[in-house]
């Protein structure tokens, strides 16, 4: 008897010991697992932080631009104009040589041809046009002397932003200016004529090959037009498809086949849609290259599966009791869907659409195929004007030889990221705000 008790208590002790041992192991495993998770998140955050700091540190300086205040006398004789001149006469006047002459008068030390060219090169090549437009806007300027805020050339701008007054060694210096030009710039800075202002050009101009004149307006308008076409086409088509497949279509082999295909299409690399667009819309239907209309068509093909899948999920999430109640009140199937299911599924559908649009906004590969990767100066005014989009603009700038485009590239990335973050936050907000829990 006592033996038995001893044996039982022994067994209990052994079992308790074993339990304690495995418990320790299980706890350790759980800790380890949590740590793996934490490390992964930490790594992800570190990557994002690195990316953001890199972009912001490179791009922040692009949001300012160097301007130089120079006194210009709009000499009536040199221009051959009078305050009474008509716009036509002003347009015909030679502002190029007037501008050069004014600069030469300011800096008589620029003696030979080379130095003169270097002097002109300190200011943007569009300066004569800007002066002309000033005079057209206000012909009374002729014969007067005013201070003009001139846009500094990209080399001047880079030097002033990154190297001026920093006593850098020759190797660290970021400057393509020579000693003569640096002398002029140093004098200008000392006299207080040089100033860094907010770079409104970046937002008001379209693409340019002169970094100081390049802006993202054309690309932003192009992106908006392209997305508009995408939205107008993809949202109704996707919603109609989702409703039919979810509510009306019979469950058979054909609908199964369609469902598998939609899921597959969502995973097809976007460049394939570009090739399809090139073959169908441009080569077969003869639509023009490089226009937002075709871009929108291609991006529609790309975003349709995403929106269809999320719309179907949203419809599925509407509980059957809603439908049954509607039927019970004598509603027809169409009435049930339009009046009850659709409004309740709408927040989910909108979220899916916004995420699809955000995806489309960041897309370049399919647009490459249909000619939207192009240098376009004029801001598009309609969906059949040649246009480019923001990510393409970033790609084009990153490939430009001029140094000053490096900061412009990062600035454009910042603008694109802002758009994406806004769209995604809107999606999150919509979901939070309109979603109903059952």
């Amino acid at each position, binding site marked *: 008897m006592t033996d038995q008790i001893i044996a039982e208590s022994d067994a209990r002790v052994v079992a308790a010991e074993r339990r304690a041992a495995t418990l320790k192991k299980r706890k350790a495993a759980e800790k380890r697992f949590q740590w793996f998770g934490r490390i992964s998140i930490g790594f992800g955050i570190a990557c994002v932080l690195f990316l953001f700091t890199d972009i912001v540190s490179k791009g922040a300086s692009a949001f300012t631009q160097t301007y130089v205040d120079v006194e210009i006398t709009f000499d009536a004789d040199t221009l051959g104009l009078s305050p009474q001149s008509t716009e036509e006469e002003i347009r015909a006047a030679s502002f190029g040589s007037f501008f050069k002459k004014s600069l030469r008068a300011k800096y008589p030390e620029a003696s030979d041809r080379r130095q003169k060219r270097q002097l002109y090169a300190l200011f943007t090549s569009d300066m004569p046009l800007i002066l002309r437009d000033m005079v057209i806007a206000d012909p009374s300027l002729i014969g007067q002397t005013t201070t003009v805020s001139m846009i500094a050339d990209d080399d001047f701008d880079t030097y002033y932003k990154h190297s001026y007054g920093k006593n850098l060694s020759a*190797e660290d210096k970021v400057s393509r200016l020579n000693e003569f030009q640096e002398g002029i710039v140093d004098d200008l800075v000392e006299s207080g004529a040089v100033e860094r202002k907010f770079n409104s050009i970046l937002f008001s101009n379209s693409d340019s090959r002169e970094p100081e004149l390049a802006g993202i307006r054309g690309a932003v308008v192009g992106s908006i037009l392209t997305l508009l076409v995408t939205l107008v086409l993809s949202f109704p088509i996707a919603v109609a498809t989702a409703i039919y497949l979810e509510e009306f279509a019979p469950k058979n082999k054909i609908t199964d086949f369609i469902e598998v295909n939609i899921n597959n299409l969502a995973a097809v690399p976007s460049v394939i849609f570009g090739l399809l667009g090139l073959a169908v819309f441009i080569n077969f239907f003869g639509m023009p*290259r490089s226009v937002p209309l075709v871009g929108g068509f291609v991006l529609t093909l790309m975003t349709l599966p995403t929106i269809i899948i999320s719309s179907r999920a949203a419809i599925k999430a509407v509980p059957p009791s809603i439908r049954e109640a509607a039927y019970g009140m004598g509603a027809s199937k169409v009435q049930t869907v339009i009046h009850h299911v659709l409004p309740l599924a709408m927040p989910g559908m909108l979220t899916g659409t916004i995420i699809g649009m955000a995806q489309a906004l960041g897309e370049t590969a399919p647009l490459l195929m249909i000619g939207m990767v192009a240098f376009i100066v004029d801001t598009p005014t309609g969906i*059949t004007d040649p246009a480019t989009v923001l990510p393409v603009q970033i790609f084009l700038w990153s490939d430009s030889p001029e140094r000053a485009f490096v900061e412009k590239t990062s600035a454009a990335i910042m603008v694109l990221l802002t758009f994406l973050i806004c769209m995604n936050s809107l999606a999150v907000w919509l979901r939070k705000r309109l979603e109903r829990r059952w």
Partner: protein
Amino acid sequence: MKNLALGLIAAAATFNISTAAARDSISVVGSSTVYPFATVVAERFGKSTKFNSPKVESTGSGGGLKLFCKGVGVATPDVTNASRRIKSSEFEQCQKNGVKEIVEVLIGYDGIVLANAKGAAPMELTRKDIYMALAKLVPGPDGKLIENPNKTWKDVNAALPATKIEVLGPPPTSGTRDAFAELALEGGARQVEDIAKLRKMKADQKGEIEAMVAKLGVEAAWTAAVKKKGEKAKGKDVVKIIGRSVREDGAYIEAGENDNLIVNKLVANPNALGIFGFSFLDQNSDKVQGSVIDGNAPTFEAISTGEYKVSRPLYFYVKKAHIGTVPGIEEYLNMFVSEDTIGPDGYLIDKGLIPLGDEQYEEMSSGAKALNNLAL
């Protein structure tokens, strides 16, 4: 439901408009090397004339000519840029598709440079050094061509430093790579005596070619040349194949088409050399330095006089049938060939284009302004 239907109708309506619309801006395609120059002209053209700014796409020389030669009509481009002359096969393709009249314009030259980071020791190379360092097949000790065994620059030429051969360059789809292979690699290969002899052999000297091919051990290249050209295969075709093939064992690193990326990689790795166009060297002269090739540094002057050997002509081609259909083409052409643009002091020269000589310029601009047809 109503909105949905309206949306669909609106979409259908815009579709109809687009197919009917004609084009009111010039469409330019072609070489990525000419792109930085053509875009500057396009921008100025839009700002200084009443016409819309031309749209410029960078499709590569071959891609551009393919689009250009597709036919006549607003769906096809009006102008294509090229960093090499149009090939006779492309010209025939054009003719076949109804693009009969083409105006050829030579705008200037572009040097291809081999550069390393500033601060690293400057390199002085010959084209033969470049061939020996980067070609797939180089002469071995017995005169036969063997897989490139050279690991360091010192292996290539005892006067060079003992650093590892590491050259960053564009991929095979790039015109820069084609030109580099032709001008630097094949140019260097021709300085090998046997290869130079082989190059001179005509198609009727079959026996001699075969003997030389056996001596060099390049039967595979000969078979390839015969396969391509048939009876017409000559020594030059074999040299083209062996001279232009780049080694694939990691010494030549394909760094993509983005030249800025190559410049940045060079700064990070002072032992590496990079291949890109002169305009990038010009814009980044504070970061990288061009190597001397055959005794000449890649300077503006040396390229324009032809002393610097690794340079190529840049062209654009205009579809004559579109003049009058798409507004502004003739004006664009005239602006491009004007003294202000590509003359010795033109604004494209400030962007790194190497200008034509005076006589060459006169001949080209008078021919272009008269819209003379290209004949090959």
